[in-house]
């Protein structure tokens, strides 16, 4: 078994298993914590507040819009760019089709993949640079935040390095880092990819039940 076969085969299976089981475990754990019982009579629907809280946070608050414009653009650029290149990149769809799902869907042309990558890279760099150059962000950032950012960056960079498909080693390195990223994911703040729904929803439900205008 070659190194590439190992990182794309058994190691990937283990990493994906840890990712899925770990993420599920943590989400269930958060939900099981539950919420403190509110004995006050509800003034509005908590469920509507949950949904509204989630949707409202996709847009910046008016008074902060100008101040936060750069990192909001960077945030959207990175997350949407990463989503597009992971799920619509031809290499990724081919891998998922052949190894896991058994079906495929339309993919981006190469120029679209490159463009999405560039937007994602630019966004991630700006977000991390903000983390080190904003005194408040620097203060509240933990090693986990930096490791998550760097691991994601290295994963994307190794994928970019393998774009020419000229050497198996480059693809193997990318897959190795993907495996490490998948294993690290459930134990880190990268989990915000799933937990943001619960976090925003919790705030939205709390305020919604009190009848506050979100």
């Amino acid at each position, binding site marked *: 078994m070659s190194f590439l076969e190992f990182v794309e085969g058994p190691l990937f299976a283990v990493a994906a298993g840890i990712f899925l089981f770990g993420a599920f475990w943590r989400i269930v754990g958060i939900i099981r914590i539950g919420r403190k019982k509110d004995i006050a009579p509800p003034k509005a629907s908590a469920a509507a507040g949950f949904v509204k809280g989630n949707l409202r946070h996709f847009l910046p608050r008016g008074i902060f819009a100008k101040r936060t414009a*750069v990192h909001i653009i960077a945030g959207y650029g990175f997350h949407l760019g990463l989503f597009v290149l992971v799920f619509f990149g031809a290499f990724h769809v081919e891998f998922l089709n052949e190894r896991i799902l058994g079906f495929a869907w339309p993919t981006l042309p190469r120029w679209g993949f*490159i463009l999405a*990558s*560039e937007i994602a*890279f*630019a966004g991630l*760099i*700006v977000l991390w*640079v*903000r983390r*080190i*150059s*904003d*005194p408040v962000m*620097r203060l509240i950032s933990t090693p986990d935040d930096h490791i998550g950012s760097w691991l994601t960056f290295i994963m994307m*960079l190794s994928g*970019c*390095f*393998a*774009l*020419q498909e*000229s*050497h198996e*080693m*480059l693809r193997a390195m990318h897959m190795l880092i993907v495996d490490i990223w998948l294993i690290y994911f459930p134990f880190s703040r990268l989990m915000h990819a799933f937990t943001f729904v619960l976090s925003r929803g919790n705030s939205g439900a709390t305020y919604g039940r009190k009848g506050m205008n979100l």
Partner: protein
Amino acid sequence: MQYLIHMSRKLLWLGALMLLLFAFTAPQLMAQSVRPPGNAVNLDDGTEPGPSNALGDVSDTEIWDQFRGGDPANLLGPALDGQAMTTTGQQWRMVRENLIRKYLGWLPLIVIGLLAVFYLIRGPMRISAGRSGKTIPRFSHNARLAHWFMAAVFIILGLTGLIILLGRPVIAPYLGLQANSILTSAAMQGHNLFGPLFIVALVWLFIKFVRGNFFQLVDLKWIFKLGGFFGSHVSSRQFNFGEKSWFWMVILGGIVISATGILLLFPWLVDDIRWLQLSTIFHALAAVVLIAVAFGHVYVGTIGMEGSIDSMLKGEVDENWAKEHHDLWYEEVTGKSAKEETS
């Protein structure tokens, strides 16, 4: 008589030696000959098909000279009529191999060496009055984002670019051709992908920093006092002459790198290959010069000058640092006199 016998023996030995040498060298000499036997080319006897005198009476060198034509010394010279081959490719290769690759890579190393020597002799430039504990804002958060975004992209492009340029002469001899091939392939993809981000970073940097970076008369004092690096105090506004020069080097060098980079990424934009050949040369030249000077920028911004890094990390600088290095700017933003405060 004995003398004659002695001489005869010597001549016999010499003759035998000559025969032996000829026996060994004759096949090689025959094999190296570019001239086929006369009967192989001049077949005008009607026994075999094909034109007579196929190779003609001119040497290979003359044939290729006629093909090439043109002035080999003129890289930009227009192609002559009837010219089947240009020499610009060879000229470009010679410049790239014998000048760019051979010497340019040393420039960053020389700068690092000079900085190390300077640091050992001069040491870090301390804030002579010590830190006051009071700070004043110097750069906005967006300006810092623009700076660090450019820095990040610059580092990635610099590393990948140096691997592409110097991989063959520097990496291959030590790690092998296969390792160099892998590294170069990776570097090329990374360089091509991050290249367009450099243009974005350059525009952002220009917008955020152009104000205050135009040269002024006060900069002459900075030049005459060698920037204060050798003791004497020198006045300056928000940016001193060194910072302004660096800013314009980045902008102008960045424009050259961006324009040539675009041509190299999209070669079909031009129909003359000489533009692409020139692009590789100017691209490498501007990039390596910027990389070399960037080491100086990093030195002054970190270990070379106490308190400098605060401006880009926190956005604020110590008041005494501002009075010492940017006194006119300090007076402008605080309305206080820098001299009175420090004395």
